[in-house]
């Protein structure tokens, strides 16, 4: 055929491919729900995020399936928390054996270590409990997105500045809530071991209950131990998830003088309609529950 007709054919083909390419979002994978929220805040419509450990799920018992490896292989970026949170991730990414880039969002953060009863020590991965760290998370995410999609630089940076301002006010809100609490009451008993960063950043003592088993039925000994500990250390609130019988919780509250706290979100967001659907609402919910319990 002559040049004119092949030119028309090529233009038509380009016209067909062109718009499709422009509509394509950047495919990325986040290891858990908190990262997903951050990426969506910064990436907006330009990014499509797949989550491995979704809302209300437990990252510690996550078992990667072949479909997860497939999703990673099809994505441009994989965002991890790092600091040992996703022990399984490296194996997963290696098995996906793809050109996908791995982004550790905690790079640049000063990590804490946690000591165990048997003397063993490792890094505490729950850095997101300190809002100042999340600003670093967001900055790292922005950088990674710009690197992979330079065309979206303005969008990403605008979103980042907006979100960073929200984070700053969140941090201020948490601090002002805690200042309102008398300093001798800034402590709780909890079985959560995920609040180390929160404790250090905001000055609330998170005390582990001595010797309470995590089985479903608390024995007389367990109950006595908690009551004794709360009384002697004048702890104003108890957040223990395995005392699930509300009558028993009430009895403990009456006898020890402490308030029984509500649910704290430590490792994952709640569902969209729940009280902790985004990172910011999660932290707000937590500080509300803590304040309610610690205030006289």
């Amino acid at each position, binding site marked *: 055929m002559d040049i004119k007709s092949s030119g028309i054919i090529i233009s038509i083909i380009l016209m067909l491919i062109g718009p499709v390419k422009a509509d394509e979002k950047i495919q990325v994978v986040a290891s858990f729900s908190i990262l997903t929220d951050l990426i969506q805040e910064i990436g907006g419509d330009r990014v499509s995020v797949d989550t491995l450990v979704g809302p209300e799920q437990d990252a510690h018992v996550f078992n990667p399936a072949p479909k997860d490896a497939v999703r990673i292989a099809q994505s441009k970026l994989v965002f991890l928390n790092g600091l040992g949170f996703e022990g399984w991730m490296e194996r997963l990414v290696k098995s996906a054996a793809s050109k996908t880039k791995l982004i550790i969002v905690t790079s640049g953060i000063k990590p804490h270590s946690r000591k165990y009863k048997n003397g063993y020590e490792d890094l505490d991965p729950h850095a997101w409990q300190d809002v100042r760290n999340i600003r670093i998370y967001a900055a790292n995410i922005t950088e990674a997105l710009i690197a992979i999609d330079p065309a979206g630089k303005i969008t990403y940076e605008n979103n980042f500045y907006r979100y960073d301002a929200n984070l700053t006010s969140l941090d201020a809100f948490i601090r002002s809530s805690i200042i309102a609490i008398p300093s001798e009451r800034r402590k709780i008993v909890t079985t959560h071991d995920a609040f180390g960063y929160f404790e250090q950043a905001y000055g609330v003592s998170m005390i582990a209950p001595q010797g309470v088993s995590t089985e479903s039925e608390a024995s*007389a*000994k367990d109950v006595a131990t908690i*009551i004794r500990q709360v009384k002697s250390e004048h702890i104003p609130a108890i957040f223990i998830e395995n005392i699930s019988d509300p009558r028993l919780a009430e009895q403990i509250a009456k006898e020890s003088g402490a308030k029984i706290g509500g649910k704290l979100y430590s490792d994952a967001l709640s569902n969209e309609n729940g009280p902790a659907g985004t990172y910011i609402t999660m932290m707000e919910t937590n500080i509300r529950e803590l304040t309610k319990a610690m205030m006289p």
Partner: protein
Amino acid sequence: MNTLMLFYEMSISPFAEFAFMRRALVGAMALSLGAGPIGVFLMLRRMSLVGDAMAHAILPGAALGYLIAGLSLGFMTAGGLVAGFVVALLAGLVTRLTVLKEDAALASFYLISLAGGVVLVSLRGSNVDLLHVLFGSVLALDDPTLLLLASSATVSLVTLAILFRPLVLECVDPLFLRTVSQSSGVTHLGFLALVVLNLVAGFHALGTLLSVGLMMLPAFAARFWTSTLEGMLAMATLIGFISSYLGIIASYHAGTPTGPTIILCAGVIYLISILIGGRNGLLLRFIPRKHLAA
């Protein structure tokens, strides 16, 4: 002096220190007061397993109450009572009107009841909730629950006092009772009602599975210490008290779940009674006795 202090530490001071320990003890003892004598009568009328069956039968009633109102004392009690009476009535009807005898009739309804109850609880709650319904929570007896336990004990003792003579007659010679008195039916129903009442009250403290334990095991043990009815009634109550105390204090020191520990203590006392009981104990057979002793 030191051993005395140690003894106090081990056995009295936990109760002095903690209100929940005192409440658990009072609740369990109140339960023994009512359940002990009833257990003796069940045993003498050869209805021991009926108590167990009824305990399972009240589960869907309590589960329905739980489904409606959560761990509510009023609803679960009412539900349990209704379920217990319905099963007793239905079993009676089936016995009277069909070819099945009492044991089959009762077994049939309690099995249906139990399965229904388990399904109902799982509809609303998690597995842990089911555990609480099954095992109760003797460490969490609030004031209304304690009042319920105490009232049930009072009602049981008063009713037993009123029905004492016909009840005894029904144990030893039911046909005779029927010929001389109208009260046979009333007595039987009244007695069953008491069984259900005590099981429902005990349900809150010890749960479905174990409230029967505190009813029956002390009665069985009492059999080996006395041959008179009054003696058995008193012994059963006393053994109930002792098991409650030992169970609570043992679970405190050993860190075991309190409800089952109480029943285990009752069980241990029962086993010991079989062996060395003053009357009819096994080991007594090896002690030479005077020939023709009464």
